[in-house]
């Protein structure tokens, strides 16, 4: 069993598991941090950005963090755990010869589609007049200023996919529900479990009859909107692959939400605007819910909240229809009937307004001071670029970063000097290390496999021994482009016996409760299922026709020696020897059993747990006598 690790990013994993002749890809996250090396794509021509000195670099900016570790066309299935971890799907399913199936839950697919749609829309609506690619040449790249010259494997950076590719990739997905058992080629069974992190987010169990691998990716134990995490089903795993823990282990989400609200209120009260760069789904639902409770108490009822995204409307509406994927609290609301999320009320009362883009209705409705939620969190494309340019010069305004995926300082770099206030309140509800250690204590897997980042404290806080996975035995770690042999051997396989063959067996009880029978049969293997069938009858010689070699072998089977079982009680054995005329017998105890020494006959009898050797010099008669004596103590069948 092997694990191929294609991504070094712990929260955007991409691993391939080879297990019992199946090749299973676990997630395909897209690491977009390399976009930070590019200039923002403004919706409106920005004189400031275009007049920046030096390198004018304009290229597609979506990147695939993959190596040629594995031939993607051999991947049988892809299991997706949440919508953030499927953003690279088109790169894998398109133009690689991939012919397999992708499994994901419905909300994952729908919201994943929205995220991809938004990404494509953001990129495509600002077509580039020119694009350069010469810099990807290693010799030229070396000349570039840092950090560009230090970027790894720029040659693998790829252009953003098109909507067509997205649609084609999504068409390969098969929808699944929690706890649904999916057979893969009869060899393994995969099951998604609720992971509590996002709408439809799942952990996966991959099991055969005797082995169980759990894949935990992006899970949360906090009470937010999704269904709570299913921990019980993860018990008794041989291997637990653990990825997607919180990216900001030192920030507690509750504290950060408080910080977010306080800063928002402070800014708005002073007449400033608040910009929240965010994804169109996920934490934004929780933020809107917190604000729903907070705005009245903070006297912000008159402040408009704008949510601008090509998929804003779909995102807000989708969230309301996936009732069965929500936490219990929200599910019960549906039966009242009430919308599960309170943002419906915010929309109804006109406190929250959503627009597909800056153009159109928004420009006529726009009122300040206000709060704007818009993408993309990298500040490199999307409507957020415009608001950064618009509001960056006033110290009254505030930009509040809530998504932890990008370094906020790097994201802000092209906008410097910046007068607006910047607040960093990363909200990451995924498991922290305390929760992980509780989870592992509860679930008790035999082995834990995780990205190497989790096995040591973060480099910036090397003294924080609490910020790493602490389990026994120590977790196995992987890094990008590594192939890991998972630390357990498959020892058993389930084999079925045909009824007529089973009928012919004559079990013999060798111990109370344990019966044995010998069986001669033909092992038939097809589609990873093994069946014992009755051996073909000895074929009649058919004359000149060629006989199969197999039937040649069958007569050999018939002279099988009987099987022996039991143990030899040394004292009684010695007595038996004496009775048969052997004298001068010495017994030595060894580590594995006993040696009976017949000094007179210069013969040794080694008795061990699973073997007995009689060593005598060319006296076959003596050997046979002794053998028969030994056999008297054993059962034959």
């Amino acid at each position, binding site marked *: 069993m092997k694990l191929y690790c294609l991504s070094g990013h712990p929260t955007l994993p991409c691993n391939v598991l080879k297990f019992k002749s199946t090749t299973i890809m676990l997630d395909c996250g897209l690491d977009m941090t390399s976009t930070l090396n590019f200039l923002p794509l403004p919706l409106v021509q920005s004189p400031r950005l275009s007049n920046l000195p030096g390198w004018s670099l304009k290229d597609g900016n979506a990147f695939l963090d993959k190596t040629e570790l594995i031939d993607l066309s051999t991947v049988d299935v892809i299991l997706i755990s949440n919508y953030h971890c499927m953003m690279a799907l088109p790169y894998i399913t398109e133009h690689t010869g991939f012919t397999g199936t992708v499994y994901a839950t419905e909300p994952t697919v729908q919201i994943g589609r929205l995220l991809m749609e938004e990404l494509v829309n953001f990129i495509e609506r600002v077509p580039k007049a020119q694009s350069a690619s010469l810099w990807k040449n290693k010799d030229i790249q070396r000349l570039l200023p840092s950090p560009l010259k230090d970027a790894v494997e720029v040659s693998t950076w790829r252009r953003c996919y098109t909507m067509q590719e997205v649609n084609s990739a999504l068409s390969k997905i098969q929808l699944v529900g929690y706890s649904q058992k999916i057979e893969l080629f009869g060899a393994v069974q995969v099951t998604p479990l609720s992971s509590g992190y996002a709408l439809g987010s799942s952990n996966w169990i991959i099991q055969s009859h005797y082995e169980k691998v759990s894949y935990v990716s992006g899970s949360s134990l906090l009470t937010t909107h999704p269904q709570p995490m299913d921990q019980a089903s993860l018990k008794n795993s041989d291997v637990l692959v653990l990825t997607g823990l919180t990216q900001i282990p030192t920030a*507690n989400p509750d504290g950060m939400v408080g910080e977010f*609200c*306080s800063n928002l209120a402070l800014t708005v009260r002073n007449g400033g605007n608040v910009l929240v760069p965010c994804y169109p789904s996920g934490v934004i639902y929780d933020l809107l819910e917190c604000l729903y409770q*907070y705005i009245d108490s903070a006297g912000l009822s008159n402040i408009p909240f704008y949510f601008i995204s090509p998929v804003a409307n779909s995102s807000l509406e989708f969230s309301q229809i996936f009732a069965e994927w929500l936490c219990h609290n929200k599910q019960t609301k549906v039966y009242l009937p009430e919308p599960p999320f309170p943002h419906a009320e915010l929309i109804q009362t006109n406190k929250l307004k959503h627009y597909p883009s800056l153009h159109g209705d928004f420009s006529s409705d726009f009122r300040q001071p206000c709060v704007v939620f818009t993408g993309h969190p990298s500040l490199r494309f999307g409507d957020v670029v415009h608001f950064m340019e618009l509001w960056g010069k006033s110290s009254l305004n505030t930009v509040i970063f809530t998504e932890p995926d990008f370094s906020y300082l790097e994201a802000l770099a092209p906008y410097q000097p910046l007068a607006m206030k910047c607040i960093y309140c990363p909200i990451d509800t995924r498991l922290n290390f305390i929760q992980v250690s509780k989870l592992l204590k509860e679930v008790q897997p035999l082995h834990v496999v995780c990205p190497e980042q989790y096995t040591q404290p973060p480099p910036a*806080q090397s*003294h*924080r*021994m609490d910020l790493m996975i602490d389990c026994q035995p120590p977790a196995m770690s992987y890094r990008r482009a590594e192939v890991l042999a998972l630390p357990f051997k498959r020892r058993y396989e389930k084999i079925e016996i045909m009824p007529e063959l089973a009928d012919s067996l004559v079990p013999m009880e060798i111990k109370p409760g344990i019966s044995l029978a010998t069986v001669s049969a033909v092992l038939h293997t097809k589609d990873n299922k093994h069946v014992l069938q009755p051996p073909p009858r000895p074929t009649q010689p058919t004359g000149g026709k060629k006989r199969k070699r197999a039937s040649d072998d069958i007569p050999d089977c018939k002279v099988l020696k009987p099987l022996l079982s039991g143990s030899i009680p040394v004292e009684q054995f010695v007595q038996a020897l004496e009775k048969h005329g052997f004298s001068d017998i010495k017994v030595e105890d060894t580590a594995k059993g006993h040696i009976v020494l017949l000094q007179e006959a210069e013969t040794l009898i080694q008795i061990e747990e699973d073997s007995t050797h009689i060593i005598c010099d060319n006296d076959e008669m003596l050997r046979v006598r002794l053998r028969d004596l030994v056999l008297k103590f054993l059962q034959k069948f």
Partner: protein
Amino acid sequence: MDPECSQLLPALCSVLADPRQPVADDTCLEKLLDWFKTITEAGSSLLLLQENPCLLGLLCHVLKPQDLSPRVLSFSLRLAGMLAAQEDCFQYLQQGELLPRLFGEAGPLGGAAWTAPSVRSGWIQGLRSLARHPSALCFLADCGAVDTIFSLQGDSSLFVASAAGQLLVHILGLSLQGPAEGHPGLQTGDWPVCAQKIVSHIEESLRSAATPQITQALNVLTTTFGHCHDPWTQVLWGRLSPLVACLLEKDPVPAAHSLVDLLLSVARSPVLSSSSSGLWETLAQTLSHLSPTQAGPLALGILKLQECPQVLRAQAFAVLLQPLTCVLEATAQAPGLLDSLDGTGGASVTVDTLLPSKAACVGLLCRTLAHLELLQPLPQRPSPWPQAPLLGATVTILRLCSGSATPTSDAGGHLCAFLVGCVRVQRAALDFLGTLSQGTGPRELVTQVFAVLLEYLTSPDSSPTVLKKAFQATFRWLQSSPETPGCSDLDPHAHLFLRELLPVLPKRLCSPCWEVRDSGLEFLTQMIGRWGGQAGFRRALLASEVPELTEQLLRDPESYVRASAVAAMGQLSSQGLRVTPASPEHPGGQQKSLLAELLHILSTDSEGFPRRAVMHVFTQWLRDGHADVAGDTERFVARVLQVASQDLDWEVRAQGLELALVFLEQTLGRPSSHCPYAVTPPVAAPPSSLAQALRPLCRVQLFEFAFRALFDCDRPVAQKSCDLLLFLRAQTASYGGPQGSGSVPEVASVEAALQRWQAGDQGQPLGYLEPEVVVAVLRSMDLEGLRGALAESSDRVEKSPQSLLQDVLATVGALGEDEADCY
């Protein structure tokens, strides 16, 4: 006993004796016992029995085999004991062989009723009351009660077990009262048999291998030495101390907690601590033998002792400080700090042994910090007090908890992993840090203190309770920071801190968590109260958004926050720190005055807390002569009293009376005497005549308010009003001159109205009253009588024994038909 009760008693006894009429309520039996106790303490029990034969009948009756409830049986046992406490009554009961039948083997002791803990407890308490005289001792010996008590020490009911232990102590004390008194040299061999029996039982228990038995023996001794300081205790301790010392040699020390209690009790006993030779050595040995967790309370106890050898104190202090030493060691603090904490040469303990697991580490640190906090203000605290190392350790703990410390060693790393985010330790450490503000510290440490406090106040991860403690500690440190000579402003150091703190405060005032907003406002109020007059502070505050935000919080959805905002705004306004910016939304003077806003809250807020806060602010403003009030004081007082009198919350009405009193004192030209620091408002020259003096009070309708309050359904309000009127009457007497010569019909009509009010009909107002009428009414009222009536508790009628008996009878009688609870 009064005749009415005597008449009811037979019925009561027969009800109690009737198993078909169960007593539903335990409390009434307790009340009956209390009542009998007062009777027997006041008079002869024998007489009581003879006059009320039904009591004896009840006691005899319960002995008959029947299905009596355990409650009644327990009650009877306790009653019998109470009666037998007097020797003549004891003899009387003995004649009838009643006592042996109640308390001996033939009684409930052997029966099925004994399984009920209440019966066992009643048995013990009965004996406890009974054992008052030498005859009782003989009785106890005869009926073999002491052995039963021994076995009850291990009873499954904790109440019974503890009572059994206390009974043993009592019997021991009683038996030694006579003979051993005055003979300190008397050996235990010469003690009464009963005492000897108990002592050998204790000895046996101390030698036992079972921890529960050792614990029982230790507890008996602890109680004995704690309560009795007779010379015989010295003999007892002399005999038992070797056995106690033997316990210390076991590993682990059994019943360590009880052992600590015993040793401290011995050390506190004036007889034992002065005489016994090996006590201090035993204490020292115990300190070094016990585990750090167990030794902490002992060390604290030793340090609290008034007199104790210096060496032992030093050792105890070292033990107490061990966990903090460990923290400093593990985080490799400056060696100077370590030396002063560890200088006593105590065995150095490593983090691994002292703080092995997270739970142990957290528990021990919290206890240590709490112990030190208790010790800090005591006069007998160790001297020199290691202020600097303690500060260093506390700051380090706080930094470990917040994750900002960077320990270099492995031990420090573990400690950090244990403590990160631990709210319990944070709270304990912040409390202790606040206490440490009483002392000073080296400059750089104080800087660190302020830095760590700022870190906590800024951190979004600080929980609301931690934040509250951080605010409290901050205020205490700011208060203790040295003032610049010449002016009472904050020192430059604290100023720097304040400059960083003030940007944090607005964020806290905007927190979605109301507890945070509330503690932020409380802190602000304290700060303004202390430094509101200082130029530096005023500048910094005015430059911040704090005053504006505070005003917005007057409309907070949470009532506690509104109340705190009212208090803070009151302070801000008193100090002239309220900003009235002419913002585009509120041009010029359109902004509501604060007075109007507070009046609005007082009359409309649905919760009591903000309204109470407004009343406090108004009272303070009136006392201080606040500008908004001083302009037209009478109008202000009239408005406030009018609104307050309508309030449903009695505290608001009571505070209204407080405000009335302040106004009254100001008007009558007598500055309030009970507040020596109050700013004396400009008082007009004392008015010449009484009528002139009272006229402003009449104009603001103070009397209507006070009279209404006098008949308030809430007693505190009525009492306060009564006091106010009495004070006023005394004041009017000092004027002399024309005495209450108001027109008679007017006085009569007011008195008639007041009578109606008293009867509950407060609808009709009094209208404007002439001073003369007021004086006449005041004089005619029996205010002293009213005060006396109010001083009695409201349930005085219901508490009478007669009512109690009636209630018991009523409940029992009515039980069948009507289950209504009459309590």
